[in-house]
């Protein structure tokens, strides 16, 4: 297997898993993030328990869940509770260490839009809406965004702010009294960004093998900021790819 014989999705899964190192709880949706969390559980985060907004804690699904409310998430879980308790006692209580989020648009402070493209009252495209994203973004201790780099997604100004990131940057999030730590990483199909600067602006920290800065800038609607040191992300290992392909997603539903 050559070093480059992996898909963009596989790379995103592998990176998300690696970044979950040592985490105890993760708030997760279906699809790619779900595979990433299970990969993390078998590799860098053996204590990791998965929390689903449908009310499931400590799931051990016997198949890849089709939706956030798949019955395979219930059978064999540690605890299955009402959504009032899931959102109140787990998420709002601060028990979610990492949350994985995505959206149709993201801005340079990690704010997300999953509500509308265009005007809210007369939308060009009506998107799904918040679901739990708004409160997840507010209450999780740390948030990872997982999104493919696209110019229409990485925008200077959101059409609608569904889920708060670092708002207008600096300490604006803390000042408003938002408890969770906010966006920490943006994991894309070409590069990784973080917000580790006083302005809390998205900054490029890692490029995937074979990707240039120009390719990244081409998909971002504002002049990108660079971290002090820029490194190249190690490619997926043979073992990481084997686990994804043979154990976690044998039917290749999400690759």
């Amino acid at each position, binding site marked *: 297997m050559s070093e480059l014989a992996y898909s963009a999705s596989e790379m995103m899964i592998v990176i998300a898993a690696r970044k979950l190192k040592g985490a105890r709880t993760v708030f997760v949706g*279906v*699809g790619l993030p779900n595979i990433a969390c299970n990969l993390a559980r078998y590799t860098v985060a053996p204590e990791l328990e998965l929390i689903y*907004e*449908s*009310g*499931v804690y400590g799931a051990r699904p016997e198949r890849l*869940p*089709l*939706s*956030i*409310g*798949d*019955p395979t998430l*219930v*059978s*064999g879980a540690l605890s*299955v*509770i*009402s*959504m*009032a308790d899931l*959102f*109140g006692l787990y*998420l*709002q209580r601060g028990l979610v260490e990492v949350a994985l989020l995505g959206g149709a648009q993201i801005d340079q402070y990690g*704010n997300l839009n999953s*509500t509308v493209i265009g005007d*809210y*009252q007369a*939308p*060009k*495209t*009506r*998107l*799904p*809406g*918040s*679901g*739990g*994203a*708004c*409160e997840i973004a*507010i*209450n999780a201790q740390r948030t990872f965004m997982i999104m493919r780099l696209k110019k229409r997604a990485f925008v200077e100004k959101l059409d*609608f*702010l*569904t*889920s*708060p990131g670092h*708002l207008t940057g600096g300490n604006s*999030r803390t000042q*408003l*009294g*938002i*408890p969770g730590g906010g966006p920490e990483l943006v994991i894309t199909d070409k590069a990784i960004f973080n917000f580790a600067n006083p302005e809390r602006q998205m900054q490029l920290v890692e490029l995937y093998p074979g990707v240039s800065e120009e390719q990244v800038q081409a998909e971002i609607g504002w002049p990108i900021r660079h971290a002090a040191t820029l490194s190249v992300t190690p490619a997926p290992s043979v073992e990481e790819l084997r686990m994804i392909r043979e154990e976690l997603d044998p039917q290749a539903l999400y690759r």
Partner: protein
Amino acid sequence: MQAAVAAYVQDGMSIALEGFTSFICFAAGHEIIRQRRRNLTLMRMTPDLLYDQMIAAGVASKLIFSYLGNPGVGSLYCIRRAVEKGIPRPLELEEYSHYGMVARYAAGAARLPFYPLRSYLGSDLPHVNPQIKIIDDPYGTGKIAVVPPLNPDLAILHAQRADAQGNTQLWGLLGMQKEVAFAAKRVIVVVEEIVDEAVIRADPNRTLIPGLIVDAVVHEPYGAHPSYVQGYYDRDNAAYLAWDKLSQEQANTEAWLDEWVYSVANHTEYLEKLGQARLVQLKPEPYLAPAVDYGRYR
């Protein structure tokens, strides 16, 4: 079901057919379509295929919700057509986050004038929905969001089993069913099995909805197809995938409604048309909870 819907569903009412991605009572929604109710305010956290079908059929004028999607598949095209193009009729939206909807039901269930939650700070949602307010904590710790109670005129809730009086037990995803039941002015419970009161009384911790607040009990096996009921059947994912394709055109959607809703008299006919073989495939292997002992004290 026909009698229950005829008795309790009137034009212009607000109705919640709830159950988070499961226990979705398609049998009741289809009967509402068949009875051609109009101008309903529908509320549901995740409208799912059922509300997409009901809205395509023109029963609703308003939707209160928190996530519009075909779960794990994609868009709800009928609802998007109604919102983006007014087809078959315009649809007013009132939008929350999941926890906001849960909190509204919880306030309605407990006769509270509002419910506080840590959400919405910094979001645009309060700007487009004046029902969401940000207030000062009376203890001086800062800002906190509040939402008002939500009390549907009618809730229709699916579950595994109930006794004849409507004392209802369910297991698996508990969602917001308890809160919706207590928040609603009237409640119809639809179940896979009607059981003896003694079955309910032998495990009182599983009773989520007491008969006290239930107006009608309907026995409707597979009434949540193509969604699922924990321990009874799986989601019929083929139906979810097929809907993703056919619902992209209003004409195809209407043809589907003709074939699967208007042309069948009731859910029993719907199941016959679906065929036994398809239902059998959805049956999971057993996975039994171990018995617990409550003890007799006399």
